[in-house]
């Protein structure tokens, strides 16, 4: 063991605090950052030659604290062979490996899992055999998951005679987490197979590409774990209900040359959906802008190159790279990319996310600010830091609108942050400069420009069985209209509709002449609904459709009243139709709405059955 003075005498270079390894203050909380800075000042003063007393007085520490701090940074002992230097300044940083006190009873606490395993080597051996069997794909071996591994561990613990008042039965949740971590670490250690590296020459080789704006755009979706609240109303009682939204899916489209985010959207589903992909493609084509009343002015809030601000760098991607998610095989999306944009669609090499490294890196950057790791921050059901039941009855203070606004602001910041490799230019400036220097910009042909990407068309036959009006059968219902006279009976027509709202369709002859607008039966006209919603309602709730006068409203209310995961289904219904007419998302503070709910409940004696 050597004190800090002895170490300094031995190696005077340790005294130059400016040469100590840098610490990323960005990753510290505000409190810890302030403590770190005070500690830094105290140590710097002592190293400059001030007395410990003077340094303590100037930095509002006690003498003993400064002395301990000097030892923490520059001292060494049997476990710590080298001085910790700047790591010693970080509050609560562990400088040496944790060792559990062997005298401590094995009831739980830090290091209990390893202490338990060292006490029972037979369990370690049995667990290793199980892992090896799984890794070697033995016919009699169990295919292990963290859950089944933990179950086996508990069985083994019972078999060796562990009492019910001993670890791991005393702290079940900690034991499960420790077993999960052990499973992954030990599995890696025991894996007999050589580490395979996917090497595909055409994925890693740097490519020279034409000087075209947005030559390659990568698109990907990530699930962001961040709790927020959203307020939905139950029509027609106008009673509001607050929902917790534990996570949302963020989709980004990133230009690989400039690293600018050219498309962004979000969705409440866990997995990527077709409509989320279409919204992202829409955002790539037209730019996006979000406006949240009362928080920020829309003009200060451009997300990713909105059309009116960055008209000159609005261009179509040359090649769109996506991964193998099921929603990415949407025919509608393929038609947009290949036939509308005339771009190249690429699904990439399987199991090689590095092929889309720019978008993955951008996600990593954004997630530093908004993503909360489920295993550490109280968002997981198994986390002991999870908030209390009473608190969970209230919606989080962060509303979804605010969270989305933050995401859009981060996207805006990303697009306008100087990058050293671009000679301190921002991605947006880089794109503008590229255009100035003669880069090509490909835009939509004029005949396509007015058509929204959400339009879909189907060929139908006009039916008439003696009724006054003819009709077409489309998406499980009959569309009628006065324009569709009996002269079209038996003829094929083209029905064109917006997939986000299928209440009406426009009908054209096969030669392209406009016939008129048809509408769905009256009971389907109450709420805008998507094509997918109609098909899924017919598929899953056919009996309800037969009896209901308002299938969409009834299903929505049913989901809302059921609560829990069904309420999130109601949210997804709103999400899919995404704003046109369906104003069921209220952008306001969740807490206000709770108070309003209480008042309304008192006043109206609203019961769920009464709806």
């Amino acid at each position, binding site marked *: 063991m050597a004190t800090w003075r002895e170490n300094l005498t031995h190696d005077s270079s340790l005294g130059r605090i400016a040469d100590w390894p840098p610490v990323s203050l960005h990753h510290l909380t505000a409190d810890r950052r302030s403590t770190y800075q005070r500690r830094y000042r105290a140590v710097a003063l002592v190293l400059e030659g001030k007395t410990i007393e003077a340094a303590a007085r100037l930095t509002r520490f006690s003498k003993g604290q400064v002395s301990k701090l000097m030892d923490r940074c520059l001292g060494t002992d049997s476990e710590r062979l080298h001085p910790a230097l700047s790591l010693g300044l970080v509050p609560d940083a562990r400088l040496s490996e944790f060792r559990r006190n062997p005298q401590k009873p094995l009831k739980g606490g830090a290091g209990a899992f390893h202490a338990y395993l060292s006490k029972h080597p037979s369990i370690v051996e049995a667990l290793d055999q199980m892992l090896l069997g799984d890794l070697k794909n033995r016919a009699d071996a169990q295919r292990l998951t963290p859950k089944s591994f933990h179950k086996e561990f508990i069985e083994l613990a019972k078999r060796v005679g562990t009492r019910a008042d001993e670890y791991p039965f005393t702290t079940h949740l900690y034991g499960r987490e420790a077993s999960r971590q052990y499973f992954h670490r030990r599995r890696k250690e025991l894996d007999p197979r050589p580490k395979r590296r996917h090497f595909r020459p055409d994925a890693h080789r740097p490519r020279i590409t034409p000087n*075209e704006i947005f030559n390659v755009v990568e698109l990907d979706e990530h699930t962001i774990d961040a709790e927020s609240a959203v307020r939905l109303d139950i029509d027609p009682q106008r009673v509001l209900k607050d929902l917790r939204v534990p996570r949302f899916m963020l989709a980004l489209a990133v230009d690989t040359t400039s690293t600018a985010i050219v498309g962004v959207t979000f969705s409440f589903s866990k997995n990527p959906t077709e409509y989320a992909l279409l919204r992202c493609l829409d955002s790539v084509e037209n730019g996006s802008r979000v406006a949240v009343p009362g928080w920020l002015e829309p003009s200060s809030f451009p997300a990713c190159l909105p059309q009116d601000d960055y008209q000159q760098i609005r261009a179509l991607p040359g090649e769109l790279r996506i991964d193998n998610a099921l929603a990415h095989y949407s025919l509608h999306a393929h038609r947009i990319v290949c036939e509308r944009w005339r771009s190249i669609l690429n699904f990439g*090499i399987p199991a090689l996310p590095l092929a889309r490294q720019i978008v993955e890196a951008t996600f990593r950057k954004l997630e530093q600010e908004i993503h909360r790791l489920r295993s550490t921050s109280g968002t997981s059901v198994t986390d002991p830091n999870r908030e209390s039941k009473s608190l969970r009855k209230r919606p989080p203070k962060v509303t979804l609108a605010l969270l989305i606004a933050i995401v859009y602001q981060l996207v805006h910041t990303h697009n306008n942050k100087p990058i050293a490799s671009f000679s301190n230019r921002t991605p947006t400036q880089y794109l503008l400069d590229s255009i100035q220097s003669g880069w*090509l910009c490909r835009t939509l042909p004029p005949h396509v420009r007015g058509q929204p990407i959400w339009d879909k068309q189907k060929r139908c036959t006009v039916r008439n069985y003696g009724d006054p009006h003819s009709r077409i059968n489309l998406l499980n219902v009959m569309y009628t209209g006065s324009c569709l006279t009996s002269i079209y009976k038996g003829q094929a027509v083209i029905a064109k509709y917006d997939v986000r709202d299928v209440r009406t369709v426009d009908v054209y002859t096969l030669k392209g002449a406009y016939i008129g607008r048809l509408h769905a039966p009256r009971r389907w006209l109450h709420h805008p609904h998507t094509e997918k919603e109609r098909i899924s309602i017919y598929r899953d709730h056919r009996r309800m459709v037969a009896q209901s006068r308002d299938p969409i409203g009834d299903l929505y209310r049913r989901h809302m009243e059921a609560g829990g995961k069904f309420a999130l289904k109601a949210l997804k219904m709103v999400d899919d139709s995404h704003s046109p007419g369906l104003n069921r998302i209220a952008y306001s503070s969740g807490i206000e709405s709770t108070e309003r709910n209480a008042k309304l409940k008192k006043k109206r004696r609203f019961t769920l059955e009464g709806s």
Partner: protein
Amino acid sequence: MKVLVPAQLPTPRSIKMSNNFFAMQTMKHCEAVSEFHSRSELYFGALLESDVAVQCYVPQPFRITLPSGRKYQPDFWVKRITGQEIVYEVTTPARRPGRPVKAATRYLESYGMMYRLVETPAIFQRELEAENWLAIIRRLTGFRELELAELMRRILTLVQHLGATPLGYLVEHFEQQRSDEVLVAAYRLLHEGRLGADLETQPISLQTEVNPDGDLA
């Protein structure tokens, strides 16, 4: 004489997921979307587009059963303007020995077609040229229906008069026309081989010079 009609076989989802799949519209293949199962196939398609001697081509044209009973699906069917039909298989040097060259050659000869192997290193040597042609094709397919014969004639006359002319100069010179239309007209002349440009060594941009030394000029 027996006839083998080439028509692009639809790619099953399993192949789309297990390969580096590409889909795009092309000029010399009349299907709505041409499908390629690797980047080397995509580049080969682009190089076929650049070849004025190629009249049309079909990727994944047919599945044949060789005399040995083995099912075989070649990568490209190409028809040249001379009427000659060639079937190409894009392969890596490592996989070359496994290709049924003799059997496929004999089988396709009975249909009046030739069989050729193309190795991927030879394609990747012309990577920049292929990328440039992909950029050209992307713009041309978007304006396929646009009538630009008069503008093309004026551009051809101007380039023959001036010699090597940057694309940017053409856009500025015909400022009464939309820049898209001028570029499409110049690209069509390049695609038809009536104008030439150095697309092998420089990425295409507004500085790229077109010259009257096209393959068919």
